[in-house]
């Protein structure tokens, strides 16, 4: 039977469990409780996911090559030990038998002879090799739906420009009010379950509003500067939260404005750099960094005949910029 008092006590320890921050006794209590409480199991899964992300918060250090050989040797040892092994390994979920699909005698399938192939890591989108501009029309096609929205987008924005300022101001005030409420609750010596829920709701609402404020500011900026031509849409990938950008060219033909959002801060020692693409060549543009929301607006000088401009991209480059683009493209797009 699940004791509700035990539930409350354990529930408040779940984050500590996820962070390996409990004393042994408390840890054991949590593990016992998890066997009978689906709510806590479910919440722990969410907290563990938050904690798991922290493994990425340290700089990358490659292990020595010989470590893989040592692992192979250790696996050989496992192979030799397993048939006579009588005690099954212990997991967080208790004692388990050897994985059922293994041979009945507990032995291991023989490894193929010959060298083990080096298996490349599947790269995320931002690490993929630089895409040739000849291929970029394919990307443009992938975003044809977005580009088709451009005309509607502009018309609606022009109609709404007068209301944007008021909305931004109102939402700014709401964000400030919510942030203040959160701070007040966090200053309390003891926080109740109700307080906790209230803080979560307020913080979530404030985050959403902050994002809306920035979207509105961005759109307001685009539509208030006048004489800008139909924008080109840029994307860093197909995922819903991938970075996005809009590049607009000025009617004078010698300026362009690139606005980006959703970009993580450039890695230490690096900056983002814009590349403008003309027929058969790419011209280095300005370097830039982004604010805490991943936003930046970059004013660019176009060269020559603006009609030759066919697209642009953004790459990660060493601080100071480069003469030729690196392989790490974070945004790419073509002129409509």
């Amino acid at each position, binding site marked *: 039977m699940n004791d509700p008092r035990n539930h409350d006590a354990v529930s408040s320890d779940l984050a500590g469990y996820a962070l390996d*921050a409990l004393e042994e006794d408390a840890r054991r209590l949590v593990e016992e409780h998890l066997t009978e409480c689906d709510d806590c199991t479910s919440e722990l899964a969410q*907290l563990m996911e938050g904690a798991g992300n922290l493994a990425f918060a340290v700089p990358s250090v490659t292990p020595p090559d010989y470590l893989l050989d040592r692992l192979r040797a250790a696996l050989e040892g496992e192979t030799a030990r397993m048939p006579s092994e009588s005690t099954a390994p212990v997991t967080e979920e208790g004692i388990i038998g050897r994985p059922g699909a293994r041979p009945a005698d507990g032995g291991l399938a023989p490894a193929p002879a010959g060298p083990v192939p080096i*298996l490349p*890591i599947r790269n995320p989108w931002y690490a993929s090799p630089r895409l040739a501009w000849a291929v970029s029309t394919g990307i443009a096609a992938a975003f044809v739906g977005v580009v088709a929205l451009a005309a509607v987008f502009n018309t609606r924005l022009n109609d709404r420009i007068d209301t944007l300022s008021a909305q931004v101001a109102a939402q700014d005030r709401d964000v400030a009010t919510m942030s203040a409420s959160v701070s007040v609750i966090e200053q309390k010596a003891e926080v109740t379950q109700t307080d906790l829920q209230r803080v979560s709701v307020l913080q979530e609402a404030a985050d959403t509003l902050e994002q809306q404020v920035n979207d509105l500011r961005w759109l307001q900026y685009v539509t208030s500067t006048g004489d800008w031509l139909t924008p080109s849409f840029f994307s860093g990938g197909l995922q819903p939260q991938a970075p996005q950008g809009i590049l607009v060219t000025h009617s004078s033909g010698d300026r362009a404005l690139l606005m980006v959002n959703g970009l993580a801060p450039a890695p230490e020692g690096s900056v983002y750099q814009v590349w403008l693409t003309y027929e058969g060549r790419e011209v280095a543009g300005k370097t830039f960094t982004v604010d805490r929301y991943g936003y930046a607006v970059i004013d660019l000088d176009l060269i020559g005949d603006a009609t030759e401009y066919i697209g642009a991209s953004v790459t990660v480059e060493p601080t100071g910029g480069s003469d030729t683009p690196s392989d790490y493209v974070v945004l790419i797009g073509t002129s409509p």
Partner: protein
Amino acid sequence: MNYTEFTDEALLAQIVDADRLALECLYQRYSTRVFSLSYRMLSDQGASEEVTQDVFLNVWRRAASYKSGRGKFTTWLFGIAHHRTIDELRKRTRGRRHSIENVDDFLNLESSDIQPADAAVANSEYATVRKALLDLPEAQRAVIEMSYFGGFTQAEISEKLDQPLGTVKTRMRLGLKKLRAALASKLRSTEQ
């Protein structure tokens, strides 16, 4: 069989079937991340090698216990890695509690450590998570960093920060939830 196209979960299913090449593929994908975490927490290459090897041996032994419904593979893997590293850290510091005023001691970027081939990817992930951490309220970030990277228990953090234990627990919980929300679908692991 071309393992490069396999998801983590599919590789794990192969491991349950005692497929060593599948384990090596997971090793290729994640050993750097596991080693990096351990190395930064322990500052000891030899111990970090031991931890990394143990982690993948654990994956081999415990593959069948992974339940995809309870979370992503990487959450499970990094949970094993962190727990093993914390054990080692506490063993070393027992009786002479380490003093960590600033977790940036653990997080300082040393460019010489970074291998060029994967540097941009690793740095992007690093930057993404660091940004999410920096976006947390300072009080929440402090307790998370002290526990996760410093190995302090929540009782020790309460004492060190002179804050009620309940407050420390609440901050940990809120901070982890915000981190999860901020990083959903932004890291490599979510693309597998």
